[in-house]
Every structure is written in C-alpha cells, then in structure tokens.
C-alpha cells in the first residue's frame, strides 16, 4: 500500500526493483565516487590545498613572536593609527595575528614567492578572509596554523574577519600588499 501503510504482507524485500531506479542508483553512485576521489586527486595535481600543518601555541607567546617579527621587518606605517607594514624576506616565515578587532600587521609580499604564513588568534575565534580572491580560513586561539602561500597576482588585498567576534566585528579589516619583484629591484 502507500507509504503511510505497512508494505505488502508478502516479503516486500523480494519485489523486483524497477530499471529506472537501478539505472539512477548506478549513475548517482558513479558520481559520488568521482567526487570522493577528486579530493585526493586535487592534493596530488592541484595547487590549492592545506596540508593540515598546525601547532598548539600559547596565545601570549604567539603575540610575542608576532611583535618580534613586526619590529624586525617593518618598512613603513599606514593610516593615522600608524599600523605597521611589514616586508619580510621572500620565502620566509611570516606572521599574522588576529585580535579584537584588528589584523596585525599589514603584510607586503612578493608575487610568485612562497611564504610560510603562520596565523593565530590572541583572544577569540576569527576568520581569515582574503578579498577579492575570496580565500577563507578559520583562526583559533591556541592553534598556530601554517599555510604555505604563494601570491600569484600583484595588487592590494583586503583581509576581512569573517568569523563573528563581537560588537566591532565589522571594523576588523586589514590589508595585504602583493608587489612585483621587478618594481623595486
């Protein structure tokens, strides 16, 4: 009978399955397997993956490391709040701190170079969102996330916080510059 009644009193398991259902299940299963294997495939052949590299970190120690990094490589400051712009050596470890309600510091990177970006939070959870390319990562206090990142286009990028972090969340906006190595060589 219908779906709100018990099935036939005979052994309903033995009812033959229609061809339309079998064909569809086969198509759907193949697609599911393609999607499944596409993720490891991209790890091998794609260039956009996160390895999972991360370390437990004490937020205070992370802040101290960021401060050392900033004092060593600051090249100028911006805005009336004197926000430091940091130009680290190509290919080095670079630090980005999320805190209420700032991204610290502003990074200036060279196009085509690979950096080890180390990012964590000093307080609550934040979201690292690089615009307009729209790349997004979760930032947790107590965890230092390491992403090997290679900017492929020069320009000015925004660093938006996209994890809700309190009343001034909407003001948590940073900058990131990617410059052509030829420009100032």
């Amino acid at each position, binding site marked *: 009978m219908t779906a709100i009644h018990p099935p036939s009193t005979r052994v309903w398991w033995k009812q033959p399955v229609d061809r339309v259902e079998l064909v569809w299940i086969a198509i759907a299963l193949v697609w599911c397997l393609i999607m499944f294997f596409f993720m490891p495939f991209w790890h091998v052949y794609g260039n956009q993956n996160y390895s999972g590299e991360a370390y437990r970190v004490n937020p205070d120690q992370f802040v101290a490391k960021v401060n050392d990094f900033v004092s060593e490589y600051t090249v100028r400051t911006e805005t009336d709040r004197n926000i430091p712009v940091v130009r680290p050596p190509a290919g080095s470890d670079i630090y980005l701190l999320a805190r209420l309600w700032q991204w610290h510091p502003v990074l200036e990177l060279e196009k085509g170079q690979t950096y080890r970006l180390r990012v964590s939070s000093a307080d609550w959870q934040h979201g690292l969102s690089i615009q*307009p390319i729209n*790349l997004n990562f979760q930032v*947790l206090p107590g965890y230092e*996330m390491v992403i090997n990142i290679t900017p492929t286009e020069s320009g000015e990028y925004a660093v938006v916080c996209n994890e809700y972090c309190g*009343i001034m969340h909407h003001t948590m906006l940073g900058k990131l510059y990617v410059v052509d190595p030829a420009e100032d060589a």
Partner: protein
Amino acid sequence: MSFEINREFRTCPKSGLVFHRPAERLIKANAVVAVIFLAVGGALGLLVALTRWPAVQLLNAQHFYTVLTGHGVVLLLVWILFFEIALLYFCSSVLLRCRIATPRMGWLAFALMLIGAAITAIAILQGGSSVMMTSYVPMPAEPNFYLGLILFAVGALIGTFIFFGTLVIAKDEKTYEGSIPLVTFGALTAAIIAVFTIACGAIILIPTWLWSIGYISEIDPLMYRLIWWGLGHSSQQINVAAHVSVWYAIAAIVFGAKPMSEKVSRGAFFLYILFISIASAHHLLGDPGLSSEWKIFNTSYAMYLAVLASLVHGLTVPGSVEVAQRKKGHNKGLFEWLRKAPWGNPVFAGMFLSLVGFGFIGGISGVVMGAEQINFLIHNTIYVPGHFHGTVALGTTLAFMAMSLWLVPVLFQRELFLPRLAKWQPWLFGIGTALQAFFMMGAGTLGVSRRHWDIAFTGSAFEWAYPGMAYTMMALNGISAIMAVTGGMIFVVVIVGTVFFGKRAGEVSGWSLDRPDTLRGPAEALTGHGSIGVKGFPAPGTFVLAGFLMLIFVVYYFINYGYLASVWKFS
C-alpha cells in the same frame, strides 16, 4: 502507584487515520508551539535580512547580533524540534494505530523543551548572549544561554524515547502486522540520528555551561567545534530524514502513491543512519590541524554514501508520484503527470517546491561547498546561510508547512481557515526563500561575510569596497525575504485561524474505547509497475528531471574547482 492507561481512540472519517486521545493532545500542543516559534523566528529573520540590505541597515550592530542569534536558535532548533516531536508522535502512535507510550512523560518533555527554550530566549533578549547559535568558545554567553539549551535537549531526548517506546508497544500489542510503514521507518531514521545529535549536544554544552559558571577553566576551541557540529550539523540531518518522510507521506496522502520499491527507499534511509552523522567535518574544513584524510573521509560521509541516499530519494519520491499519476491515466508523454498535478493544493505545491528546492539549491550547493578544497572559497561567507536556507527553510520548513496544512485540520477536526489565501502560501514562501538562497550564495561567491553587520566596514582603519553586484545581491535578498516572510505570515494566520476559528468539520468522530482494527498491509502480488511509462521506465519524466539535476550538479562542481585553480597557490 499505578496509572490507568488511557485507551480512547477515534477514527478520522476523512483520512481513516486513528488517533489515540493523549497522543492527539501531545501532537496538538507540540505542533502549535512549533508554529508560534516559527512566527517569532520568521519575524527575527526579516529584521536580519533588512539589516543586511545595505541601503536599509535597519538595526544597530548590537541589536543585529542579538536578533541574529535569536533567529538561528529559534528556527534551527526550537521550531524544527517541536515540530519533529509532533511528527514522531504522529508517525508512531497515529500511523501504527497504537496508544502512545507514557503520555505523562510526553508532557514532561514538552514542559522541559518549553522552559528550556524560554530560558535561552530570555538570555538572548537580555543582550549578554549575542554569541550566535554556534556560541563558539572562548566568546562567552550567559550561563542561562547554555542551560536553556541543555534542558531543551533533554526534553527532546525524552520525546524521542517516547517514540521508540510507542514502536515497542505497537509491536507488543500487535496493532499492525508485517513491517512498519515507510514513513514510520523514515521517522525512526530521524529518531536514531536525533539520539546521536542530542548526545553530542550534551557532551559539549554541559562542560561549556560549567565553564561559563567557572567550574572548568578552559574549553578547547577546536574540540568545541568538532563536537558542537555533531549537534549543529546532525540536527539538520534529522531534518533531512524527517522531511523526506514527510515528502513520502504527502505523496501517499494526496496521490495514494506507494513507494516504487520499499527495498530501495528503506535502503536509502538506512544509509542515512550509517553515514550521515559524520558530517560535522563540513564545518572544520578550513580549520587548523586536522588531517586531509580525516577531512576527506568525513566530509564525504564516507564516499558520499549519504549523498547517494538523498539522490535516491530525489528520484523515488517524485517517481512514486509519477507512477501513481500514470496509473490514474495521466500516462501521456513525459510530463503529463506533472502538468495534471494539483498545483492549487498547497499541501502538494509545498511538498513539491520543497523537494525541487532542496535538491537543486540546498543539495547541490551543500555537496559542492563540502568538497575539501572548494570550501576555502566558501567558508564563513554568506554563501553558507544561502545554502542552508535552501535546505532548512526551503526543504524542511516548507515540507513541514505543507504537512501542517493537511494535518492541523485533521487533528482539530476543523476546515482550513482562508483556504484561498492558503493556496498562495507555498508559492510565496517557496519562491521567496529560493531567491534568498540564490542571492546569498551569489553575494558569498563575491566574498561577502556571513554574520556581519556592515559590509562597508564603517569605522575601520582601512577601506575596502565589495563589487557593486554584492550590494545589489544583498538588497535583492532583503526584497526576497519580504516575500518569504509574507508566505510565512500567511501560514501562521491560516494555521492559528484553523485552530481557533476554523469551521467545524461536517463529520466529527467521537472517542471510543474499542480497540482499533489491526493495521495490515495488502496481500498484493510482488510485480513491477506493468505497462505504464516509456520503454520499461515507469517514471521516465522523473528520470529526465533527475538527469537535469545531475547535469547541473556536475557542471557546477567543476566550475568551482576551475575557479579555485585560478587563485593563489597554497599548501
């Protein structure tokens, strides 16, 4: 101390369904409270959408985050779970013609859920718990925010066990013969997932509550996210199992449709039980420290076997409608069965819009953004609310609305209030919600954040402007929300009106102590579907529609990987 077991039943003259008196009261109470919370949550949702419309920006930042927290908690948890408890009682007691187990405990469950919801709602309204539904640590909420949720969950768990108890009684007292109906089987699936879900909620919210009152010094934020999403995501999987059951139920009620194959449909529900609860990983794809192997296995529900289940239901639900329509003589061509469907009946229209919207919008977007690498393009953007308005609002809520438009008149033995207005309801709500999902997904693709008061970043040290199209999309989302909320308001007016002012049904059934007849399945031959359809396919129209869905799915999946290949390299 002993209680007299109430054995009063009535048989609905129209539907033939058998209601146990205490069960009927419990279903009424849970369903009506659910609808009231839906009204509250919908109003909050309108305020959210009007604030995120940049030219309107109705609320200030503080009120916005408070209202957004309330909108999430009230709709994703309170409305849905109250309705699902009503649904569980319906699928056990009513569909099996069985007395409900421990009705007094049912009232305890109801009271706990109501008190819990009220405690959390008050904590949110007081303004000190604007932590969003997810309440990620270490951002603190008031202790009562967590306490209310814990009480609510305990109530829901009791309700779930009353469902299991009722199944046991039905078996024991032999109220039915053979197997339970497919819809009850689907409800059983939902209930099993609910136990896992509520356990996750307890495991994380109880320590978090203790942390908020100072008994625990620290909650690890990553562990919190992992276990909290065992509650947050799995609760939406309860919804999937529940609303798929509702689709089958409405197909049965409106068309007398029977499952194309009990084996296939039940097998698909069984896949949900096995694989759906590991989806907590969807939310952790952009998190530090979890291995790719873990992410790939879990985010794909173990090779997408739960997605396979949904794809199967996506064929078999409309397929069962097509077979029923073709057997009634609408057997011409591919789509006569669909053209001749009762589009003016809001029960059917709501169910069908829910089915199509869930598949094309909620389903495809959910699987695509749950791919490990694509998630980096989507994580925490407003694409995510776009997706889950496609699943929870358009899929689950609209299915539950359609079910209510049929169930409430049957329960209260009244006629539907303002039936001509009710006809518009699924269309306004369905299309409005679908457009909302679409525009939010569009804005998210352009980088707009979710849970963000001001995409112009007023007061920030730097400036950044999203593309003009993002602003347009957020405005269109606001307009679509007005349409959806209009549909939602009509629903609430029709339901509340039916309960209080609906015309008494012509034939009213009285309570009787006679034991209802045992429920028996038919002794029909186990054959295929005969000569209907085209070329041995009994549901060719559905197959073509499903193929269309698959085509969009595949194209959209690879478009996203294609865009991903163009952004910065990272490893």
